[in-house]
Structure formats: structure tokens, C-alpha cells
């Protein structure tokens, strides 16, 4: 076999390989494209074309920014620059595209840079997953979950109100009836003052009774009976994490743990403390809504605090707490969020304080805030309550 023939055979095999590779890319289920250093699309596969609704010909040579959502252009350019400068090898980011028909596509893009034989950046390869359907489904799940929570709350309130209404209706009924009977007796001229005085006395006692119901109710709300037990805080946090991760996925956020080992137990109602932790983690995630995905982690820590306490810290990289709202922050119905009742922090603080602990926050030196919950150790001397 002469070399010419061998070369031809090799070339044919090479071409075959290339063809296979092309087909693989062309028919990959997710969008794949290459972009030159000036941000123009070079090649795109079928999945990418159908995602954005353009043909391959229409996309070739087109600036990728022209099909990017205007709000994401700046972020995309910044990221590409970091990639080109070699600061990162690849990155993954949520990015929105505008379809040819004007529709919106939510994508998760992974980009990497390809270097030429001399090591200079040469082109970008992008891999885009269509998240539109998934996000829609998640939004629906989220909405129905919130609706359920709302219905549950309404139902609980409804039951409570019915109970209270009954308790207050009884003395009110008696008051009204005594008064009406007295009026009838006076009008009928059959009133004797002894009898009327007795009725007046009964009326005032029933008014007192209605007042007692309300006082008792307020006490009930303030001092909910709690079941305190020795609690391993790290184990408790570990139980919260899967719950919080449901929210983390919704917010495209992550939870990082920073737990000190071998911590002693505390005396607490585990359900209530879990509520506090979950509430703080959620707040943290919501505060980072505008961040890039790789800057959305909540750091959940637990370590020994001062004066025989354990301290839970929830650190975010969010927008931070506006100056001058420090005190209002813990008040009922105060909220900086567009959704929400502003009950979370007020309830959390009252739970923590009913455990003889403290809840406060500090501003991080770089960005965001850290919320601190300190709880007294079990048998760690006497602590003040109230």
C-alpha cells in the first residue's frame, strides 16, 4: 500500500469522525453554540435554534447580545471578559434570551473559552439548557404551596375566632338580656329597686368576665406552651437544611454549613427553634434575589457563644438592612419585602426571648447581614426570662 492511498484512507476516516461529531452536536438535546471573541455567533445546533426560534442561517454572524435579554447583557459581557482574561476557566449562569417571536427563554448557560495552539483565547463555547418549562412548573408548585399555607392559616384563624367569639358571646348575651329584662320591668311598672340593683350587679360581673376572656387570650398568645427538651443544635440545623433547600432551589441559592463540632446541648422547644432558623435562612435568600447565582449562598453556622450560650449565625450576601430601620425591623408587620406580612422576625425574636436567648443582627464588612441567635446552654446557670 503506498502512502498516497494510506493518506486518502486516513483522510476519509477523519472526515467520517468529523461528520459524526457534527451530527452529535447538531442533534444534542441541549443548545450548543460557538461565539467569536467579538461576541458573534459562529455555529449553533438545532436545539439552540429551536430554543430561540431562529434558523441556523439567521444566527450565523449575529451578535449574541442581540438575542440576549437587555437586562442580562451587561452581566453576560462582564462574565465573558473574565473568561477571556483567564480569571475563570468556565462559568455557569442563568441567562435570558429573547426569541424571534419576542417570547422569553430562561436558560442556564455554561460557557468555556477555547485557546489556539499558542494559548491565546480563540473562541467561546456555550452550552444552554432551557429552564422555561422547569421554572414555570416550579412557580406553579410554589404558588400552590403558598396558597395551601394561606388556606391553612386562614382556617386556623377561623377556628380561633370561632372559639373566641363563643367565649365572648356568652357574657355579651347575658349582659344584653339582663339589660333588656330590666328595661321591660321598669316600663311595666313592676320594677323593684332591689331586683334592678341585682341585675346591674350581674351585668357588671359579666362585663368583667368578657374582659377576662380577652386578657386570658392575650396571655395565651404571649406564652404559648412549649415543650422544652435537651436539643443538639447541630442535629436540629441538619434537620432544617432539607426544608430550607426546597426554598434554596426556588431562589437558585445554596446553603453552606459552618458548624463547630462537639457542642453541648441546650434546653429548647426544637420545633420553635427550627422555625426561627428556617425563617432567618429564607430571609437571607430573599435578600440575595438580585445577586449572581454564584453569589447567593447563605452560610448557616453554629458555635459556642459568650456567657454559656450557643450561637447560631445566618449570614447572607444580600442587599443589607437599610440604615435607620434597626429597631423597626423586629416589630410586627414591619417588612422591607414586597410580599410577606412582616411577622417573621417579630415572632422569631419572641420565640428566642421566651427561651431566655437573644436575636440580633450585624452588618457584614463586605456586603449583606448576619443574624445571630444566642441560646443559653442546658443547666448553664440561671437565666432571665420574660
Amino acid at each position: 500500500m503506498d502512502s498516497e492511498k494510506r493518506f486518502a484512507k486516513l483522510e476519509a476516516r477523519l472526515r467520517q469522525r468529523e461528520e459524526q461529531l457534527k451530527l452529535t452536536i447538531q442533534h444534542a438535546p441541549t443548545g450548543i453554540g460557538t461565539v467569536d471573541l467579538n461576541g458573534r455567533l459562529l455555529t449553533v445546533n438545532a436545539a439552540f435554534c429551536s430554543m430561540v426560534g431562529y434558523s441556523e442561517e439567521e444566527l450565523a454572524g449575529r451578535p449574541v447580545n442581540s438575542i440576549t435579554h437587555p437586562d442580562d447583557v451587561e452581566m453576560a459581557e462582564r462574565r465573558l471578559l473574565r473568561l477571556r482574561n483567564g480569571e475563570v476557566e468556565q462559568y455557569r449562569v442563568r441567562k435570558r434570551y429573547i426569541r424571534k417571536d419576542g417570547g422569553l427563554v430562561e436558560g442556564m448557560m455554561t460557557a468555556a473559552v477555547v485557546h489556539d495552539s499558542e494559548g491565546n483565547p480563540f473562541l467561546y463555547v456555550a452550552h444552554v439548557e432551557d429552564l422555561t418549562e422547569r421554572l414555570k412548573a416550579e412557580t406553579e408548585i410554589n404558588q400552590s404551596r403558598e396558597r395551601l399555607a394561606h388556606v391553612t392559616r386562614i382556617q386556623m384563624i377561623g377556628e380561633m375566632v370561632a372559639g373566641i367569639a363563643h367565649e365572648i358571646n356568652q357574657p355579651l348575651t347575658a349582659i344584653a338580656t339582663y339589660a333588656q329584662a330590666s328595661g321591660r320591668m321598669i316600663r311595666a311598672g313592676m320594677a323593684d329597686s332591689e331586683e334592678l340593683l341585682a341585675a346591674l350587679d350581674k351585668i357588671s360581673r359579666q362585663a368583667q368576665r368578657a374582659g377576662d376572656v380577652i386578657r386570658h387570650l392575650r396571655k395565651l398568645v404571649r406564652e404559648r406552651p412549649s415543650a422544652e427538651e435537651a436539643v443538639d443544635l447541630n442535629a436540629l440545623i441538619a434537620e432544617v437544611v432539607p426544608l430550607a433547600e426546597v426554598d434554596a432551589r426556588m431562589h437558585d441559592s445554596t446553603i453552606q454549613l459552618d458548624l463547630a463540632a462537639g457542642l453541648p446541648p441546650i434546653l429548647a422547644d426544637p420545633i420553635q427553634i427550627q422555625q426561627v432558623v428556617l425563617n432567618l435562612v429564607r430571609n437571607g435568600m430573599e435578600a440575595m434575589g438580585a445577586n449572581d447565582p454564584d453569589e447567593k449562598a447563605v452560610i448557616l453556622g453554629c458555635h459556642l457563644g459568650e456567657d454559656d450560650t450557643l450561637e447560631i449565625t445566618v449570614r447572607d450576601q444580600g442587599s443589607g438592612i437599610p440604615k435607620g430601620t434597626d429597631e423597626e425591623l423586629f416589630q410586627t408587620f414591619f417588612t422591607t419585602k414586597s410580599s410577606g406580612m412582616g411577622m417573621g422576625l417579630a415572632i422569631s425574636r419572641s420565640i428566642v426571648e421566651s427561651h431566655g436567648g437573644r436575636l440580633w443582627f450585624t452588618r457584614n464588612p463586605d456586603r449583606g447581614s448576619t443574624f445571630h441567635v444566642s441560646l443559653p446552654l442546658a443547666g448553664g446557670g440561671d437565666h432571665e426570662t420574660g
Partner: protein
Amino acid sequence: MKQADSTVFIVDDDDAVRDSLDMLMKSMGLAAECHASATQFLEAYDPDRAGCLVLDVRMPGLSGIDLQERLASMHSILPIIFITGHGDVPMAVHAMQAGAVDFIQKPFSDQVLLDRVQQAVEQDRKNRALLLQRQEIRERIESLTPREKEVMAMVAEGNANKVIAIDLGVSERTVEIHRARVMQKTGAESLPHLVRMVVEARG
């Protein structure tokens, strides 16, 4: 007063509500009798006592609805006015279907309650008079001999004496005698009166 021998029975576990209702009834010249529970009421219950029952729905032990069922199973005709502290619609519907006169929500206007109580007491008085009358008629009919009863039934159906005589195989004269005894024993003043009595007794 025609309601003099009627009693308003008040059953409510709340001392103050019960006591104030007692005072309200007395201010209207109505005799009232209070019971703190359904069981207490049942122990004292006498089907021959007229009036009405003012009954709280929600009580520990036997509830107002339970008491209504017990009374129904005893064929009580005492009218029941329910009072309730909360607007429980299904319960109200159930109570009304089971024959309650009314369902009033606390706190109520005394006028509304008194109106209902007076209507109920009046209704009960009429019902009892009717029952008494029916009882009397039945007793009078019971005093007839078998042959007289036969004649009475045929007369009430509108048969002429001649027809009855043929049917029973007796003389027309005998039928006339039986017929006169029927009228006398039942106290019927006319044929239509007799017919009404027969219908009433079946009622």
C-alpha cells in the same frame, strides 16, 4: 292569661345566660324553669307540661341537638327554640329539619326571642288542645259496640239507612236505632259533625 299554665323551659350550661333568660321571661309574665344540662332537664321532663323549650346548642355532655333527638324519640311535642353562640349553618339546617321552631344567634334581641317564645307557646297550646280533643273523640268512639262502630263507619261513608240495612242483613228500623245511639254516644250534633269526628280520630 291563657298562657298561665305554660312554662318556658330554659336549658343552657352557662349560668349567666340561663339566669338572664329566666329574668327576661319573668319580666314578660311568663313562667320559666331553668336547667343547667340536658340530662337535668330530661330527669324533670313531664310530657304533659305545656310551653316551649329554649335550648342552647353547644353544651358539654348531651348537646342541644342530642336532647332534640331524645325528645323526638319520646314523641314529645314541646316546641324547641335553639339558641347558639356561633353561626353554624349545617347544624341549624339539621335542627330545623328535625322540627325545631327556630334557631337564634347569641347575642339576640329580646324582642325576637320573646316573639318566638310567645308564638311557640301559643302553638303548643293549640297542639295540645287538638290532641286532647282527638283523645276525647277516640275515647267516645271506643265506647261504641262493634255493631255501632260498623254502622258509624257506613254512615260516615255516606250510605243511606236502607243500604246499610241490606248490607248488614238487618231491618232499617234497627239501623235507625244504632244510628241514634252513635250520635248520642259520640255527642255528634249532625251528620257532617260525625264525619269530622271520624276523620279527626283517624288523624
